[in-house]
């Protein structure tokens, strides 16, 4: 079995999600390689070896400087064909979704997405995908190689195994249509604050806060816990909090060790973005709020009283 993991990077760092998928691939066994595509990215290869890659293919080309999907499809398609790769695994991201689907079309290969597990059963790769708002789990397979898969954010933790990889530089050719789109402005991580996808603790606020200024309560609690602040779509749409903090189907997917939801009903739109959290605490005055169905510790009560008290208790510890 030969497996290739698409190693996404941003501002000189391999992303945690990609390394988690790489660690999982190493556990599954066989030949495991990573692919690092970009411009001036050779230095990232060594990192990948520590997380289980035996080989790292580096495609370094100015056409890959911006994180656009289509030139990556060209480069990966060539790699898969030349190296006889059977499985290509991606960690979910805006970029990975477009790269994997383009590659599936190019190779006429099967793509299964949103996987919360991958395993090898009787020598065959099998994925597990939650469906219908996670009410049912579906085991999915592929009829033939190459097999493509996108793993849900936060599913696998990176595990450092201390190995080192053979680094191989690979050239690439690009289709005209693949380089037609250009990045006019590229997103950069905000300099301040913890990214909500990387944070170990998330305190999230919803419509139950009552008004935008009440986000101060959420911010203070997050600060006391050393965590980051997230918001639901309802309050982002209402203009109470920035879109970049939105968790859910149309926002980000988070998997902190601790999630505290305040004034959040737990609509499916939000749930799919945070259900991977380790421990879920919910505070809501509505005893019937769906969030209590998937909380570890639920409090039916007024967040305006409970949250400030909780912040004080934590600060005084």
């Amino acid at each position, binding site marked *: 079995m030969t497996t290739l993991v698409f190693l996404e990077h941003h501002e000189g760092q391999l992303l945690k999600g990609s390394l988690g998928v790489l660690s999982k691939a190493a556990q599954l066994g066989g030949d495991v390689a990573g692919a690092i595509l970009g411009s001036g990215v050779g230095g990232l290869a060594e990192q990948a070896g520590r997380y289980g890659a035996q080989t790292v293919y580096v495609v370094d080309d100015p056409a890959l400087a911006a994180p656009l999907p289509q030139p990556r499809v060209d480069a990966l398609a060539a790699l898969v064909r030349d190296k006889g790769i059977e499985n290509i695994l991606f960690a979910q991201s805006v970029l990975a979704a477009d790269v994997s689907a383009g590659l599936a*079309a190019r190779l006429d290969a099967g793509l299964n997405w949103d996987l919360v597990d991958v395993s090898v059963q009787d020598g065959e790769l099998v994925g597990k995908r939650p469906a219908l708002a996670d009410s049912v789990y*579906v085991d999915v397979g592929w009829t033939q190689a190459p097999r493509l898969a996108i793993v849900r954010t936060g599913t696998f933790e990176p595990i450092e195994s201390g190995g080192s990889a053979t680094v191989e530089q690979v050239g690439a050719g690009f289709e005209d249509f693949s380089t037609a789109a250009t990045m006019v402005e590229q997103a950069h991580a905000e300099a301040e604050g913890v990214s909500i996808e990387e944070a170990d603790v998330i305190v999230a606020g919803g419509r139950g806060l009552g008004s935008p200024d009440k986000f101060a309560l959420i911010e203070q609690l997050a600060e006391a816990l050393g965590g980051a602040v997230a918001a639901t779509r309802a309050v982002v749409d209402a203009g109470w909090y920035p879109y970049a903090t939105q968790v859910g189907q149309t926002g980000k997917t988070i998997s902190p060790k601790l999630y505290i939801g305040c004034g959040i009903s737990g609509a499916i739109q939000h749930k799919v973005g945070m259900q991977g959290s380790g421990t879920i605490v919910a505070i809501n005055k509505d005893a019937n709020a769906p969030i209590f169905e998937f909380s570890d510790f639920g409090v039916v009560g007024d967040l305006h009283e409970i949250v400030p008290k909780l912040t004080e208790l934590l600060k005084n510890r």
Partner: protein
Amino acid sequence: MTLLARTARQGGYSSEPMKIAVCIKHVPDTGSRRIDPQSKRLDRSGEGALNSFDAHALEEALRIRESGGDGEVVVVSMGPEKAIDSLRKALAMGADRAVLVSDEGAAGSDLVATSYLLAKALEREQADLVLFGQQASDADGAVLWAAVADRLRRPVISQVAELTVAGGNARGKRQTEFGYDVIEAPLPAVVAVSDAINEPRYPSLKGIMGAKKKPQDVVTVSELGAEVDRAGESGSRTTVLALSDPPPRGDSIKIEDDGSAADKIVAFLVEKKLI
């Protein structure tokens, strides 16, 4: 901080009339969604509706056409015959023409087969712009546009929350994990829009009455000139092996606040070694 939902309406203007194809999906009603234990696929026999995410793509197409003064908006779908209902809704909202790829042989198509057939239907249209919504609410797929763009050999921009079409280019602002990108691509191009881009209109009574008279083509796989064995299950490369219940969460505690909730939360976090 910029709130895209509020500034999105700066975009969408075109100087010359253009042809826009909007891909839409007919999805089973939320309440009645089930997986057929026999086929292990989503049961599509019941009532359905236009995938809500696709209404945003259609709305964007209509706004571009309206700002350009002319042009054509064609809605394209693949699905069972009932999918014509969603196409009619799109016509009622203002689309000019509908194309439905409907064929027994296309049932059970996965991403690879669907993108192949949809690209075949789109090739016949030769649109300047192909629009998609950001996901299918039934299968949670959010990837089809990239596969179709590769088959059409056209540039793609996804997750677009603010779209400008002018001077033969599409320019999209979109949210990623790191903030906002602005991407530009020459037409013809494929663009997938986010649902933050606009508020879709409701069909007017006049629109609903007029929809019936608008052209509606239902085509088969062979009429598209597509290879039959690349459609449906024979053209698909993924399979469903088994269904199971989701794993249960561990014990959960639910209390009513009697004034001591904050202390109890702290005690719980200490017990879980989270603080």
